[in-house]
């Protein structure tokens, strides 16, 4: 019997499915598609299709609520259309979708499932009940013989999983009891479960937070950065959406903090029960703005201090880079009332006097050793990369180009930051933060390093945002647009051999390499060695002499080094064994 549908939109939607099905595609009317079909029934009487669809997809609705919405605007002919689809339709439907339509036309009562899942409609389920904690698995009761499906919706955003991409974890015995296990469930994870009977009808979703597995909840909400879509709107607003709405951005109830790195403004949003943004969520900003994102599940990273990534509003006009405001001082250089303790001075020297060299780089009074260590390493291995990333605009401003991962494409994209030559200075005129060795006067100092550092601070928000430590590998990635790598260094013989091999390989291939020391010196490990704890160095070479292997390093201070290394210029050699003892990490970016 051919399907005759009178409602034009419903007919069009269903016809598309028929065509796909006839072409041999895996067309299946599932919960998401049936909501679309039913929106075509729920429209009319002042509600557009889009509005009806929005109503049906509103978070928190039960299946019964959805049925009532559709029925409220359903005409007799539309009811007949749905009956036709049920009885004569050629496009396969999931049991859940069929039950939904049957409830709308009055054949079955509506179940109580939420919009996030499916329900068995009239299926005779005992309620799924979870008992106890999850120390030994997930246990509970349900109708005998039912299978239990589950998904970890804390970790699901890290993969390509939808919230109903479940795995079967157990089958209830004759008494209705079950005990199932899932891989990689940690304390505090959100587990979403439902039961399914032998006919394939699924029951209501039940969500639990796993407990009893370990003493503390150590897994924060996982964020799928690539699903965060920003679009510049009107009135200084940036619209935020989940660009893959069938999958989560993070776990339901997670809080995400967006910080506009240009203005410093922060905004926190709580994700809905689908792990997505609430409708019409927006931020203050404009095209080209970058937002850092931090997340918390309420337990981990509760102060939102650790960020998970950045996302940029597309659409900035090519070449139309605005000069950004001078980055604010680090908090240590502010008075109690927040006013700066240091003034600025305009520097007008050349960007380069004789190209980019490691010895140009001198760390200032700021906790960002990882940055000058990376830049000096790059000046050694690939000075042209530095000359390519900064240019003078001829008007007292300079454009510095960084690289940022575009999660929408999986590729690095350019981020231009325009700064001027104003630098914070001490009372006697010397730069407070990064500077270049040699002539430090405002008229002659070589500017490439302090200006790239300034642009990096502006990009991240302020000197405060880059001045409390970091990874050299992140800097190399942001400059080269190539993933930063790292390895742990230790005195274990095999690790020392791997370290030596990696240094040789990197130096020979002209890769920039940095190395970090251990974080503290409680036992006097570093005192009098000429090497400093909690510090990053550039690895600038290696040598083998008299059967001994040496790593050549440079302190980004431009001075202070182990005795016996010639002029106090920060450049020194360490025996490999000493390097392995004093250093913790090797970081590099491959070519």
């Amino acid at each position, binding site marked *: 019997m051919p399907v005759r549908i009178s409602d034009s939109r419903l007919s069009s939607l269903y016809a598309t499915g028929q065509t796909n099905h006839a072409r041999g595609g895996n067309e299946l009317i599932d919960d998401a598609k049936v909501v679309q079909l039913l929106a075509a029934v729920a429209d009319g009487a002042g509600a557009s299709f889009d509005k009806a669809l929005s109503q049906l997809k509103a978070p928190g609705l039960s299946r019964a609520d959805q049925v009532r919405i559709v029925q409220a605007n359903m005409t007799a002919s539309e009811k007949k259309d749905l009956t036709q689809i049920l009885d004569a339709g050629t496009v396969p439907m999931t049991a859940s979708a069929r039950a939904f339509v049957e409830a709308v036309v009055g054949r079955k009562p509506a179940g109580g499932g939420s919009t996030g899942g499916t329900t068995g409609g009239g299926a005779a389920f005992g309620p799924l009940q979870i008992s106890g904690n999850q120390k030994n698995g997930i246990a509970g009761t349900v109708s005998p013989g039912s299978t239990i499906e589950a998904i970890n919706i804390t970790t699901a955003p890290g993969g390509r999983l939808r919230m109903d991409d479940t795995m079967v974890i157990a089958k209830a015995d004759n008494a209705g009891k079950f005990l199932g296990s899932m891989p990689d469930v940690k304390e505090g994870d959100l587990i979403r479960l439902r039961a399914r009977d032998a006919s394939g009808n699924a029951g209501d979703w039940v969500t639990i937070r796993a407990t009893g597995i370990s003493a503390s909840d150590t897994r924060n909400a996982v964020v799928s950065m690539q699903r965060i879509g920003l679009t510049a709107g009107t009135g200084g607003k940036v619209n935020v959406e989940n660009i893959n709405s069938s999958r989560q951005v993070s776990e339901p109830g997670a809080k995400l903090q967006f910080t506009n790195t240009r203005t410093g403004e922060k905004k926190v949003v709580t994700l809905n029960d689908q792990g997505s943004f609430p409708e019409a969520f927006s931020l203050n900003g404009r095209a080209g703005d970058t937002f850092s994102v931090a997340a918390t599940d309420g337990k981990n990273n509760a102060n939102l201090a650790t960020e998970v990534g950045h996302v940029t509003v597309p659409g900035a006009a090519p070449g139309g880079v605005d000069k950004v405001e001078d980055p604010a001082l680090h908090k240590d250089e502010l008075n109690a009332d927040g006013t700066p303790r240091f003034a600025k001075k305009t520097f007008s020297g050349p960007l380069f006097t004789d190209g980019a060299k490691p010895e140009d780089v001198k760390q200032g009074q700021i*906790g960002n050793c990882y940055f000058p260590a990376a830049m000096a390493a790059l000046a050694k291995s690939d000075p042209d990369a530095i000359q390519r990333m900064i240019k003078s605009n001829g008007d007292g401003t300079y454009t510095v180009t960084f690289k940022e991962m575009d999660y929408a494409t999986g590729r690095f994209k350019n981020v231009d930051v325009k700064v001027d030559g104003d630098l914070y200075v001490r009372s006697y005129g010397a730069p407070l933060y990064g500077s270049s060795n040699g002539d430090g006067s405002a008229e002659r100092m070589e500017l490439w390093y302090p200006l790239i550092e300034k642009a990096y601070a502006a990009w991240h928000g302020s000197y405060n945002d880059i001045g409390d430590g970091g990874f050299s590998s992140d800097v190399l990635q942001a400059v080269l647009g190539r993933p930063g790598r790292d390895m742990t260094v230790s005195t274990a013989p095999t690790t020392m051999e791997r370290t030596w091999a990696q240094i040789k390989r990197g130096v020979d291939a002209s890769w920039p390499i940095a190395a970090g020391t251990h974080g503290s010196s409680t036992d006097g490990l570093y005192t009098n060695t000429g090497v400093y704890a909690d510090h990053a160095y550039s690895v600038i070479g290696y040598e083998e002499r008299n059967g001994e292997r040496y790593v050549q390093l440079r302190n980004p201070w431009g001075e202070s080094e182990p005795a016996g290394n010639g002029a106090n210029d920060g450049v020194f050699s360490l025996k490999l064994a000493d390097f392995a003892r004093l250093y913790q990490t090797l970081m590099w970016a491959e070519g």
Partner: protein
Amino acid sequence: MALPPEPLQELLPHATWVVEAEVVEVLSTGPDVPKISAPAGWTDTGQKVADQRVRLKVTRVLRGEDVPELVVNKPVAAYSLRAGNKGPFLLDGTRPHPVILGRYGPDSYALAKLEAALKG
């Protein structure tokens, strides 16, 4: 914290003593400083370690009263001392126990740099 040492010209005016000395004994150590949590490889966390009181055997006085020995306080800082550590120490005028100046104690400044600054 792996900031560079403070500019010498800013610190030297506060130094009552500038001596070459060796730590002969760690007399006491203060309470542990809370550990700053950071992932491996993260440098410049600003981690500091406990204060100490140490006995110094003075081998040369570049500035200040000529004394053979001093008991001084190492403040909460990024470095720690143990017997045998040596180098140039800048000390303030606190009595009875002067405080070691310079972000890294005896590793803050090369002796030659100090000598030049004191002459200048």
